[in-house]
């Protein structure tokens, strides 16, 4: 038996096996299609349950994606967002803190200015004559200046 014969016999052997196997699995397929309605229904239920989990997960992904694109603040804590997006989302917070500091400073300056105007008006105005009749004011005039 030469090499060609051996190759031919092996190929023929494989072909026979394959043909037989496919005949058997055709019967198995036919058998599988004859499963009871109860089994079919339970398989359908299992399939639907699996698909529901996928839809739920994909729904969550869509919400996360939408939040990232629609609102910068909504992406805080979203671990997979790019660094510039996370930085941009923090900018409004910095602006808010800076604005509060400026407002507080402006209010303090405004109060000091008002107090200075009152003092200036008091000191620059003529002293009422009744002030000299006040014992406290007399004591104030007698007391040596503190500085």
């Amino acid at each position, binding site marked *: 038996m030469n090499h060609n014969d051996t190759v031919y016999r092996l190929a023929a052997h494989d072909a*026979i096996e394959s043909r037989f196997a496919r*005949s*058997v699995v055709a*019967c198995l397929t036919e058998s*599988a299609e004859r499963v009871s309605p109860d*089994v079919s229904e*339970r398989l359908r239920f*299992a*399939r639907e349950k699996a698909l529901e989990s996928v839809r739920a997960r994909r729904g969550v992904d869509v919400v996360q994606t939408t939040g990232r694109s629609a609102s910068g603040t909504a992406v805080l804590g979203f671990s997979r967002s790019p660094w510039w997006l996370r930085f941009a989302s923090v900018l409004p917070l910095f602006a808010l803190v800076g604005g509060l500091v400026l407002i507080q400073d402006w209010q303090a300056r405004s109060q000091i200015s008002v107090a200075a105007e009152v003092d200036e008006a008091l000191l620059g105005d003529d002293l009422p004559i009744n002030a000299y009749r006040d014992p406290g004011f007399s004591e104030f005039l007698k007391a040596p200046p503190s500085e």
Partner: protein
Amino acid sequence: MATDKELSDFLKSVEKRAWKRAVYAVRDDDAALDIVQDTMIRLSEKYADRPAAELPLLFQRILSNATMDWFRRQKVKNQVVRNFSEFETAGSDGDFDILETLEALGGPLQSESAAESVSRAQILQMIDSEVAKLPARQREAFLLRYWEELDVAETAASMGCSEGSVKTHCSRAVHALAKALKAKGIST
């Protein structure tokens, strides 16, 4: 990424075969249903984002793992290992002559004259039974290779063995089935 429809169609196309394969392995219809459901959920939760073309092989691997998990839960792992090792000791029975008798015949499986009165359903039941009797590894290789239509490399990857082992398992399974069916008067 597989769409919902692709995933649904795939699961629908494979669910009954998967259930039958699980039944062959665990010999329990309800447990087989649980295994298939577990397999579907695992595939959907972990691999739904993979391309549709990858789903068949992933599904087969998950199904095999889910089946093994079931055996582990049942604390009969040793029995499984023993069943799985049967193919190692089962020698080739050299029944190529049986296959040679098949060569001259074609078409779908049909009953011989002695079994002509047997209904189609009974024939299918007998074939089903003979497939169930195959050693686990032979049956797994045979079903993955010919029923799930995986190629040799994919079958080997799914079973975690070499391609040579897959060919050996398949060949032995075919010989065993041919011999058993011939003995029952069924031929191709």
